[in-house]
């Protein structure tokens, strides 16, 4: 333990703490920009590049960056000496001198740390004018926009992509005024092994990285009389959308969200959760077959398009392992444009499927050519939780005052097993609930598999089902996935089933969710909300969803049937590792 004084206040901190940590302890938030800490995932960006956090340390000639200066015994720190204040303002001034001042039209307007700092420091004019960077905006991908003119070189995206996700797309390139963060050879993200998880977008404190925005396409579809427009909402959206719209973090907003979607003008408000139940039917069927045959184990989940693209590029030799089941988003699209289209007597091309996702990779997934039979996409438009929040605001809907309402049927009914897809561990738990019943031919009551819950990056358990010891693992965050996959490749794993999600903590922390600005307690609250929603559900097992039963009896016959294979399963493709 070290004792120090900050602004003459005594504080004691653990060895290894920084001045920033120590100040936090006494309730002082030193301004930061490049520093990023996601404590529950053990991720930190400590490049010390922006110098916005400088403070005065007694007996040191130079100001010290608080975010990366370790505390020593007896240190005396002044956070607001006139020298520190001036230096911080100059830093900000210099950053702004090469920053397009387009806040009013910026995608991160209201979510930008640079904007916040300018407000906090009460900057009235920008002192310096000089050369401005001029980069072409990367609009080539379905999912992510890169506008490097706004990049402040904090390198937070690099930490997200390279350290946390180990995808390894982004690098600092060139030097001096030309320095920029980009993929190798200045390529567009589409030409790389980027998985579109969007974790770099969440990490970027400014508008240099943002989502590709499809709100206007949705408005146009809704206003097109000739189309039937249906919407599906992913499990993790309902526990986060409220944050955009004036509710407390962790409030479940399912009912209000359904009301708002109807008010926006969707013809039918359906639920991706229905398709999550369907995914469980197909995936569990596959799991049991593989376990019985003791073949191709472990089976890996395949609902996360970020993870799917990751193994296609970086672990092509394991391509036979993931379940062939499509993700819930794509199952929903395929069923809507076949079964449901037939039911309402419409052609697939006259139905527009809009999905609301916590995710940016879903935008990419929806555009994969194999999900557009005869050129008609199963999912026409995918928007993020943030985009839906914006649409509700634009429509002037007073979200917090709305009454609850229910999803439409038949594609709106779901079980507790489906909603937990939104949290790391949920897909596996849902599969275990169904597998246990199917293997024992019983209606088991003890269905809470606590061991696979939680935000930790990797979890494992051995579950006894019908006398069979099933060894399962759950990993989230691609860095953790990589470690496990290396073990599998080396034949060091004995698991039967593994759930993998690209985003740390699962979809509740997806790249399309409301920004948490490093407050990871929000993720904890979203997670609790998801399990609250699950335990509040009357039906908590996918195979007991009455509309799923109806779908099989009327249409698909049984899990794994030829028609189910045609509509609900897919193939993967080895891709270049660049």
């Amino acid at each position: 333990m070290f004792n120090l004084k900050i602004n003459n206040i005594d504080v004691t901190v653990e060895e290894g703490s920084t001045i920033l940590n120590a100040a936090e302890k006494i309730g002082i938030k030193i301004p930061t920009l490049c520093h990023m800490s996601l404590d529950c995932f053990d991720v930190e960006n400590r490049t010390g590049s922006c110098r916005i956090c400088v403070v005065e340390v007694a007996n040191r000639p130079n100001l010290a960056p608080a975010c990366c200066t370790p505390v020593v015994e007896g240190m005396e720190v002044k956070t607001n000496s006139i020298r520190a204040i001036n230096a911080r303002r100059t830093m900000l001034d210099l950053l702004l001198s090469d920053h397009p001042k387009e806040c009013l039209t910026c995608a991160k307007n209201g979510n930008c740390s640079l904007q916040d700092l300018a407000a906090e420091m009460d900057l009235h004019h920008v002192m310096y004018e000089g050369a401005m960077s001029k980069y072409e905006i990367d609009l080539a991908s379905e999912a992510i926009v890169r506008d490097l003119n706004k990049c402040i070189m904090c390198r937070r995206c690099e930490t997200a992509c390279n350290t946390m996700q180990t995808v390894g797309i982004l690098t600092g390139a060139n030097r001096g005024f030309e320095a920029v963060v980009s993929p190798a050879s200045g390529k567009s993200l589409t030409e790389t092994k980027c998985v579109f998880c969007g974790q770099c977008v969440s990490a970027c404190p400014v508008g240099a990285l943002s989502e590709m925005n499809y709100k206007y396409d949705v408005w146009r579809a809704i206003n097109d009389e000739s189309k039937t427009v249906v919407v599906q909402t992913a499990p993790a959206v309902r526990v986060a959308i409220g944050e955009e719209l004036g509710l407390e973090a962790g409030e479940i907003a399912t009912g209000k969200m359904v009301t708002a979607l109807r008010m926006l003008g969707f013809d039918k408000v359906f639920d991706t959760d229905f398709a999550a139940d369907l995914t469980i039917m197909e995936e569990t069927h596959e799991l049991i077959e593989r376990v019985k045959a003791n073949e191709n184990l472990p089976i890996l989940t395949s609902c996360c398009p970020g993870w799917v693209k990751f193994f296609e590029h970086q672990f092509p030799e394991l391509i036979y392992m993931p379940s062939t089941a499509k993700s819930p988003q794509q199952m929903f699209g395929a069923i809507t444009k076949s079964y449901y289209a037939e039911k309402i007597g419409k052609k697939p091309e006259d139905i527009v499927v809009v999905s609301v996702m916590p995710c940016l990779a879903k935008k990419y997934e929806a555009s994969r050519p194999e999900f557009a039979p005869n050129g008609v996409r199963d999912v026409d438009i995918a928007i993020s939780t943030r985009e839906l929040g914006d649409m509700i605001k634009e429509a002037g809907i007073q979200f917090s005052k709305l009454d609850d309402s229910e999803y439409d049927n038949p594609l709106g009914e779901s079980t507790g097993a489906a909603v937990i897809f939104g949290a790391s561990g949920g897909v596996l738990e849902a599969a275990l609930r169904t597998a246990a019943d199917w293997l024992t031919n019983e209606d088991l009551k003890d269905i809470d598999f606590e061991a696979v819950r939680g935000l930790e990056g990797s979890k494992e358990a051995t579950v006894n089902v019908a006398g069979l010891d099933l060894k399962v693992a759950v990993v989230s965050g691609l860095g953790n996935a990589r470690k496990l996959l290396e073990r599998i490749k080396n034949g060091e794993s004995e698991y039967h089933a593994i759930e993998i999600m690209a985003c740390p903590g699962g979809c509740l922390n997806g790249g399309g969710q409301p920004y948490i600005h490093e407050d990871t307690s929000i993720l904890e609250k979203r997670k609790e909300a998801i399990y609250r929603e699950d335990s509040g559900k009357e039906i908590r097992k996918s195979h007991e969803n009455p509309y799923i039963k109806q779908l099989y009896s009327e249409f698909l016959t049984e899990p794994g049937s030829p028609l189910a294979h045609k509509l609900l399963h897919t193939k993967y493709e080895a891709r270049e590792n660049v």
Partner: protein
Amino acid sequence: MSSCTCSKDGGCSGIEEINLIKLFPEKTSELDRYIETLNITSDIEQNRGYLIQVLHRAQGIFSYLPEDVQLHVANKLSLHLSEVYGVISFYSYFTDKPVGKYKINVCTGTACFVKGAGRILDELKRYLSIEEGETTADGKFSLGGLRCVGACSLAPVVMVNDKVYGNVTTDMVPQIINDCSE
């Protein structure tokens, strides 16, 4: 019909990406033999420490570092391509573009700059019809800038491979180019 003069005239599917690794197996194995002498393991941190010297050797062998060479090095060292590219683009010593037989570099240090290095560079660009960082179509000349070479008393200075020209004026440009043919 296109006016290409290559043997594939008419049967060309577009400009193919250059792949030095495939094109020059003996050079590739020379590089691989060098890499084998290093202690490359699954420890990425440690491999990272070898990156610069491997790139150095690779550039010595292939004379420049296009993407396929970068990727080859990245795979050998279990690093991501982006990281290799980051290093190459940071150090002006490395280049990912082909360089000419004669590397003409104009010193852009302060003294040379003040004494008109900019004009010399402009004249070289005009004379060779290439921009800074480019190579003439015949692969003979490439043009670049150089940080101070420590010959400030001779400013402005132009270097052609290892040869130094001092007190250069724009009139001297044709002669400098001529010297190269010798």
